[in-house]
């Protein structure tokens, strides 16, 4: 048994427990939180390295052979995701040293952050359907408490919407699991995948697929099920919004891709069309919401939705190139979204407002922040040489190959609208002159650098990936190959 695969779950669990025990000491919590995130990044990187050199990593819990016990699997897709998530979690943990208030820290912000990471990592590396449901609930309850931490009225209101819809999503997912278990008699992904090939009952298969689509679609914020996202993501403080926007929707979309490629490998005609329609509408609605929005954090929340459309579009093509584009897009979108929300938090802090029209002067007073904003913002709009461009280019290529011209046109149009949105945001918040002389923030240079270091590091990393996208693209392509050709995955799990 490979003990390494358990580490992405164990490390955040231990960090969470230790920070909870040391909750009286703010300093000890902070040190542990950053150390825990660093250790997580280390362990995830080693797993990613092992996956790259030795192929798919599998660990059977308690040495129970595959279909009976719980299996942990890391292929290129999940290993890439846990590494990038850990990177973002570290950035958020550092940012939270200054960007989080004392009360929230004493009421367990660090503990919850790490428990959330435990749930996310568990969902990424599990190879068992019911286990995935359990990890979803772990990350859900952690995110619920993170969302209401601080007890502001708008937080409670956002949380009611978020909690309500997510409970329904979980039930939809659980129903699908129950039906699939009755259908195949197994809960192991690889085992179900082998038996799905033998069973042909289109009606029930479509029902199960639809239930999965609803459950994960709510979590990923897809078109008709997205309305809770702009109602809740802007309410908590910036580090919480950043980790939510960066990771939570990606867990939903990861599960969607994993389930739909592995368990329903030959999608019935309308599933494919449905996914493409949903993708197109998600992109358009998200960007139109962002165009009309005047509040920075709500605007960013709408942009989270439109990015999910691109990923689902890649899944909808069901080709290796399309999936490679989707995976690459997810990989670069996690740091992009996280750093955008972190920058949103700094903008609010420096100018004392969240209304875009009332901001200004950031370019004169915080040039480094202004530069760091350009990278994720233009990556979002798909502007070369930023990494979002390569993701969109691959997706457009895949669309042209499969002759889905309409969705490609929609994607390009949405890219242009996104450029308009971020351009406007840049011009109004950064470029326009400040209302008074200078900014309202009284932070010292050291305090500001704690906030800006993670943002700048994320921006530099994204810029480097944009200039030299080959390694990340190769990882995405390897992940996509594993997704379309499931034989190695099944072989690795079932032995």
């Amino acid at each position: 048994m490979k003990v390494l695969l358990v580490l992405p779950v164990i490390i955040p669990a231990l960090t969470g427990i230790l920070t909870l025990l040391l909750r009286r000491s703010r300093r000890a919590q902070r040190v542990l939180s950053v150390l825990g995130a660093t250790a997580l990044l280390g362990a995830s990187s080693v797993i990613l390295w092992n996956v790259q050199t030795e192929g798919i990593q599998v660990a059977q819990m308690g040495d129970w052979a595959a279909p009976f016990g719980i299996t942990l699997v890391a292929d290129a897709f999940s290993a890439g995701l846990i590494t990038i998530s850990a990177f973002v979690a570290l950035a958020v943990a550092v940012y939270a040293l200054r960007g989080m208030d004392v009360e929230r820290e004493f009421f367990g912000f660090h503990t919850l952050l790490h428990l959330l990471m435990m749930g996310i990592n568990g969902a990424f590396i599990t190879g068992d359907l019911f286990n995935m449901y359990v990890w979803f609930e772990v990350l859900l309850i952690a995110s619920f408490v993170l969302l209401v931490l601080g007890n502001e009225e708008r937080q409670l209101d956002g949380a009611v919407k978020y909690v309500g819809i997510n409970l329904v999503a979980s039930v939809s997912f659980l129903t699908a699991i129950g039906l699939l278990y009755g259908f195949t008699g197994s809960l192991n992904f690889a085992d179900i995948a082998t038996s799905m090939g033998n069973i042909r009952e289109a009606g029930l298969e479509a029902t199960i697929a639809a239930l999965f689509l609803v459950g994960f679609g709510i979590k990923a914020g897809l078109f008709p099920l997205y309305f809770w996202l702009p109602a809740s993501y802007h309410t908590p403080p910036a580090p919480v919004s950043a980790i939510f926007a960066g990771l939570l929707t990606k867990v939903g979309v990861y599960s969607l891709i994993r389930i739909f490629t592995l368990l329903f490998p030959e999608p019935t005609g309308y599933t494919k069309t449905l996914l493409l329609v949903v993708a197109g509408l998600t992109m358009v609605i998200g960007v139109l919401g962002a165009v009309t929005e005047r509040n920075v954090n709500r605007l960013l929340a709408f942009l989270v939705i439109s990015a999910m459309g691109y990923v689902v579009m890649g899944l909808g093509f069901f080709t290796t190139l399309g999936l490679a584009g989707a995976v690459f897009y997810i990989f670069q979108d996690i740091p992009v979204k996280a750093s955008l929300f972190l920058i949103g938090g700094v903008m609010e802090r420096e100018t004392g407002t969240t209304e875009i029209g009332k901001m200004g002067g950031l370019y004169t007073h915080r040039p480094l922040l202004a530069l760091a904003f350009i990278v994720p913002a233009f990556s979002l709009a798909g502007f070369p040489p930023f990494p979002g461009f390569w993701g969109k280019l691959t997706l457009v290529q895949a669309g042209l190959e499969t002759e889905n011209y309409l969705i490609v046109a929609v994607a390009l149009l949405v890219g242009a609208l996104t450029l308009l949105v971020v351009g406007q945001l840049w011009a109004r918040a950064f470029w326009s002159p400040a209302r008074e002389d200078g900014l309202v923030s009284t932070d010292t240079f050291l305090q500001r650098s704690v906030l800006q270091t993670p943002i700048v590091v994320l921006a530099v990393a994204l810029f480097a990936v944009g200039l030299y996208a080959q390694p990340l693209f190769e990882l995405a392509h390897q992940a996509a190959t594993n997704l379309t050709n499931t034989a190695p995955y099944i072989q690795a799990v079932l032995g």
Partner: protein
Amino acid sequence: MELILAVVSGLLFAASFYLLLRRNLLRFVIGIIILGNAVNLLIFTMGRLTREVPPVIPYGQKTIEGAYANPLPQALILTAIVISFGLLAFTLVLIYRNYTVSETVDADNLMASEPKRDVDLQTEDKRLPA
């Protein structure tokens, strides 16, 4: 037996959907409770109902001989019950806390996280939420 359970599960689903569509948040929570039970019953039914011996392996043997009752759905339901119980407790506290702050359990009046409206659209409807 399977038919009865299937019908009961369906009725629970119908009742819960009716409650989920109400504007009153407490009714929504009751809907969630019923929905959870409907799904548990569905998992139980999908695990094949058999009136056989419990799956206990006799001493000295490695497998069970003959038919046995499937224990896995029960394990799954137990987990699901525990999880939904925890989430339910959280949801009830959240709704109560939200009620003390915003003084409403009407889903349509929860507007604290939305942008301010210029016009009050709800002046004519002052009845209690259904």
